[in-house]
Every structure is written in structure tokens, then in C-alpha cells.
């Protein structure tokens, strides 16, 4: 078991390097002059060269990449001249805010999605099944920003029950903090609920048709015992989707974070792109990509834990 996990971790390292090269190249090669925004209108070519040298932009690509990776490894993402802060500091704050929102949304969305999908799968063809399947399609088709705005209008503007936006502060108590979370969590996890419910239902239905289920019943097992067997077998696609969903949530939704003024990664990267704050864009993209790779790694390891056959497959 330990060696297989070790192998999976080792396989993730080249992926991470590939990701870092891609992100770095993309922004180094893209058209658009990062200096243009930093230089005053009346800058001379000499000023420009001076700034370019100061920022190390005159060095060859490879050297710049190696020094960038070295800096990143030590947690140095550079300095944002626009925000007048270290990029690592900006990222840390935004990532924490997004992680809180994503964590709550993931727990909320995956729990409801798995529960609804399981119910629909077990009672296939019933009213519950049709309701879940129908609502899942609605959840997938309705844009999250529309739901977000609808929630804002109803709960904040109309009834004044919930704060319209911003992140709560723990100093105002947990209740206040939680109130700030309600609407962004609901709006943001709608798609997670819908996708998870659909995948869970499909996997449960498919697993119930396998032959071993007949044997479980032939042994006289009770239906809830049969469901336990079926659930464990149906787990694999649900885990994979859950990993992807958590990945998306952790990437920070630009729309949700903008609507609810949630100071997370989505908002950070959106503002950075508008300002051509390349270092922030680069760092945020890298953090999101690394999160994805690590999540997939975690999902892989969980899959091995749930399905002994994967141990043999390596």
C-alpha cells in the first residue's frame, strides 16, 4: 500500500513541473507589455531598459524560469507593484478565504448530492428519482450568478435576513460569520449538488444491476446491507467527480466571489487580470493548478483504499 502511494506521489511531481512550465511560458510569451503600466508616460528608452534590468526581464527565458521556480519553492512569488504587497501574502489571504467558502460548499454540496443521488438510485423510477433527476437538470442549467442575484434580492434586499456580501469577521461571532456564508455557499454549490447527484445515481443504478447483488440477496442479506455493498462498489466515479468539484470550488468562482464580494482567489485573479498584474495571475494560476494535482492525488489514494483491485493494478 505504502509503495503504491509513493509511486502515485512520484508520478505527480513531473505533472507539477509540467504545469509550472506551462503557466510560466504562457504568461512570458503572451503579447502585452508588462512594463507599459509601470512606466510613467514620459519614460525614455533608457528608463525602460533600466526597469527591465531591475526586474530581471532582460535575462534569457531558461534562467528566468529557473530563478522563478526557485523563488516559488521558497514561497517567494514576487511583489505586486499594483497592490503594493508581496504576492505570497495576497495569495495566502485570498486562498484562505476561498478555502473556507470551498470547504463549506463542498461538504454541503457533496453531502446533499450523494444523498439525493443514492435515494434516486435506490428508488429508481419512483417519484423521488424523477424529482432528483429533474432538479439536477435545473441545477445544471441555471447559471450560478442568476441564483446568486435572486438570493440577494430575496434574502438581503427584500427580507433583510442575510448580509448582502463580504466576508464576516469572527470577532462578530460565529453566527455572523455563518450568515455571510449562507448565500455564496448555496449559489456556489448548486452545480456540485447537481453533478454529484447525477453521477451517484448513475453509478448506484449501474451497480445494482451487477450479478453479485443477486448473490447478496440470495444469501438473505437485508436491503440496507445490500446497499452498503452497492455503495462501496459505486464509490469510484463519485470520488473522481468529488475531487474535480472540490478542485473547481478551491479555484474560486469569479462570479460568486464578485457577486458576494468574497475576497478570494477568484476575485484576486479577476482584478489582477484587469490590471495586468502578471505575477499575481501567474501565482494564482499555479496555486490553483497545484491544488488540482494534489486533489487528484488524494482521490487516487482514496480509490486504492476503497477498491483492493487497484492495489494489484498499481
Amino acid at each position, binding site marked *: 500500500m505504502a509503495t503504491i502511494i509513493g509511486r502515485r506521489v512520484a508520478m505527480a511531481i513531473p505533472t507539477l513541473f509540467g504545469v509550472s512550465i506551462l503557466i510560466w511560458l504562457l504568461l512570458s510569451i503572451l503579447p502585452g507589455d508588462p512594463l507599459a503600466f509601470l512606466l510613467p508616460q514620459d519614460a525614455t528608452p533608457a528608463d525602460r531598459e533600466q526597469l527591465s534590468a531591475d526586474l530581471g526581464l532582460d535575462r534569457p527565458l531558461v534562467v528566468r524560469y529557473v530563478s522563478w521556480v526557485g523563488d516559488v519553492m521558497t514561497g517567494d512569488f514576487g511583489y505586486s507593484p499594483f497592490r503594493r504587497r508581496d504576492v505570497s501574502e495576497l495569495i495566502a489571504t485570498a486562498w484562505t478565504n476561498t478555502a473556507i467558502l470551498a470547504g463549506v460548499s463542498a461538504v454541503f454540496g457533496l453531502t446533499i448530492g450523494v444523498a439525493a443521488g443514492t435515494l434516486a438510485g435506490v428508488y429508481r423510477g419512483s417519484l423521488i428519482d424523477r424529482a432528483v433527476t429533474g432538479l439536477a437538470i435545473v441545477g445544471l442549467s441555471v447559471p450560478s450568478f442568476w441564483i446568486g442575484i435572486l438570493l440577494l434580492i430575496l434574502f438581503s434586499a427584500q427580507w433583510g435576513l442575510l448580509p448582502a456580501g463580504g466576508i464576516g469577521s469572527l470577532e462578530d461571532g460565529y453566527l455572523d460569520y455563518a450568515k455571510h456564508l449562507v448565500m455564496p455557499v448555496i449559489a456556489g454549490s448548486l452545480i456540485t449538488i447537481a453533478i454529484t447527484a447525477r453521477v451517484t445515481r448513475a453509478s448506484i443504478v449501474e451497480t445494482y444491476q*451487477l*450479478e*453479485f447483488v*443477486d*448473490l*447478496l*440477496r*440470495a*444469501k*438473505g*442479506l*437485508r*436491503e440496507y*446491507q445490500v446497499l452498503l*455493498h452497492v455503495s*462501496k*462498489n459505486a464509490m469510484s466515479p463519485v470520488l473522481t467527480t468529488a475531487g474535480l468539484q472540490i478542485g473547481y470550488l478551491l479555484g474560486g468562482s469569479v462570479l460568486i466571489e464578485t457577486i458576494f464580494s468574497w475576497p478570494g482567489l477568484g476575485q484576486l485573479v479577476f482584478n489582477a487580470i484587469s490590471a495586468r498584474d502578471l505575477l499575481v495571475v501567474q501565482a494564482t494560476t499555479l496555486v490553483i493548478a497545484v491544488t488540482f494535482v494534489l486533489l487528484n492525488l488524494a482521490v487516487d489514494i482514496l480509490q486504492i483504499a*476503497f*477498491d*483492493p*483491485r487497484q492495489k*494489484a493494478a498499481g
Partner: protein
Amino acid sequence: MAVTAVPERTARQQPRPSVGSVASSAPAPLLQVEGLKTQFPTRGGWLTAVNEVSFELAPGTVLGVLGESGSGKSAMLRTILGLQPKSARISGEVILEGRDLIAMSARERAAMRGSSVSMVFQDPMTALDPVFSVEQQLVETIRRHHPMSGEEARGRALELLHLVQIPSPERRLKAYPYELSGGMRQRIVIAMALVSNPTLLLADEPTTALDVTVQARVLDLFHELKGREGMSIIFVTHDLSVAAEIADEIAVMYAGRIVEQGSVEELVRSPQHPYTRGLLEANVRPGQADRPEAIRGAPPNLANLPPGCSFAPRCDLVEDACWSALPEPVHVSASHFARCRLVTASESN
């Protein structure tokens, strides 16, 4: 394999004996199937997989059910065990130890499954849950029917693996199904079926999916189980030689009906139904030079059965009357009947 006609068989000869009439002359049969019918909804109407099947099984006997694919033999076993989907339409009686399995609630039936009646499936590669260990799957079965500690259940699981002759059972107990060979898996499926010493074991082509050499050894195991006190077996197979080897009695199924039934000796020596004869001729005999004779045509559409004999379209001896009326069972001896109008009844009957 000496087979003797059991006296209570006479009771079966009446077209539809009531439960009471059986008890009068002979010891009560272990299993009594009466007018069992299983239908599935299809776009073309109701498909009749099991059609008015009636038979009895005495304690300790083995009934071989012979037929080609789609003849309803597996569907019959599943119906007896209550494994058919809810959409299926089921009628008739399956009386095991005096209780009707069809009439009882799903909950009661689940409690009977694995204790009084259990089943061995055709394909051991897909019959076991791939993500649970052999031990987990055996222990849960044992504890479902016998309240005992996990430790005791593990001991019992080990005993069962010994019983089905699995080499180094301690190690196999910890294994997952994918780590075991087909023959080994089938032994484990059999061990699971034996957890509660069932009085009735249903075996659905248990050797078909196995290699020939493994087949022979699993069949040997069934021979040994046969000797176990009180256990009756319904052994479904499409292989006449397997049926002849393991069974006391053979029922030949065609298009959902039992078309001929008799002791192994009677059936092999003097097959009465043209279909049974066809099956015998389709079998390769030792020293046979020419190709075995296949039965021409294909089984009928079970959603749209002809009014007369289901075998008429494939029968070489077909007469006009065969097409119009369903042939009644004709007894050639007390223990041997065939559903064919060409068969002449024995004088003693």
C-alpha cells in the same frame, strides 16, 4: 448410480394435486412447485419465461434441470428464490417445508434465503463482491442467520472453506475475489450457500463457466454435498452428461415448460419427447466419429407462444394436431412422463 422410483411420485401425476392429497400416501416432499408461472413485461407483450411448471422434490434428492439457453431453467430458480425484479408477474406456489415462498412477504423470504434455501450462481467471476474480502462476505452471511460474535463467525467461515476443500483456507479467507481462480471462487460461492445447512440448494449451471478440469472437481464437490443429510439440490445445466452424473431425476425444460421428466436411467435409456431425443443426439458420445446431430431451428419467441406444442416448429415428427392443442403429460411409467401427443401411455397408468 442406482435410481429407484420413489413412491410419492405418483402424487405428481394428477394434473394439479392439492397439498392435502400428497400427505395421504407418502412422506411430505421437501419442495412442491405448483403451476409456477413467471412473466416479464416487454414491448411485445408479456414474455412467459416459466410456464405452469409443477414438480416435487423429495428430501435428499437431486433434480437435474436440462434445457438450452432461454428455456426458463435459470428463471425458474430465480423465481423460487424470489430474485425476480418487481416488474415480473409471478403466480403459482412454491412450498418449501410447508411454507409458500411466493405468498410470503419479501422480509420473510429474505430470512429464508441463505438459511433454508440458497443458490450457487453460474459465473463465479462476477458473483462475488469484488471490493470485500472473502472473510467479510462469509462472515456477514453467517452472522445474518446465526447471531454470533465476529470471532466465532470467522471460525465457522474457516470450517466452511475446509468443507469445500479450499487449500490453505486461512490465507484464502483474507483474500479478495480477484486474487482467486475461478474454481476457488466457485467453491467460496458454494461455501456461502452452505452457511446454514440449507435443505434446498439451487445450482444455476455452477460448472459451466469453469475450465473442464476444474469443472470435474467442482462436480465432485457436489457429489459429496449430495450425500449430506436432508439436502436436496436442483441442478440446472445444459449439459446432459453433467445432469446424468449428478442427478437422481431429470426434468427437461423447453420454452418455459417441463416437457419430460423421469429418472436419469429412464430418460437416458428411453427418451420420449422428440426434444429430449434431440438433446441426446446433440451430445457427443465416446468413440463417435460423425458430428453430433443438432436440433434444427431456434427456440420460440416466449412473448408470443404458439397455442399448441411449443416444440412443433422444430419437430421432425410434427402432426397437424400438434399445432392446435397443448399436449398433456403422458406417463410412460410411474416416474416418467413426457408432454407429447406421440407418446403412448404405459398400461399400468
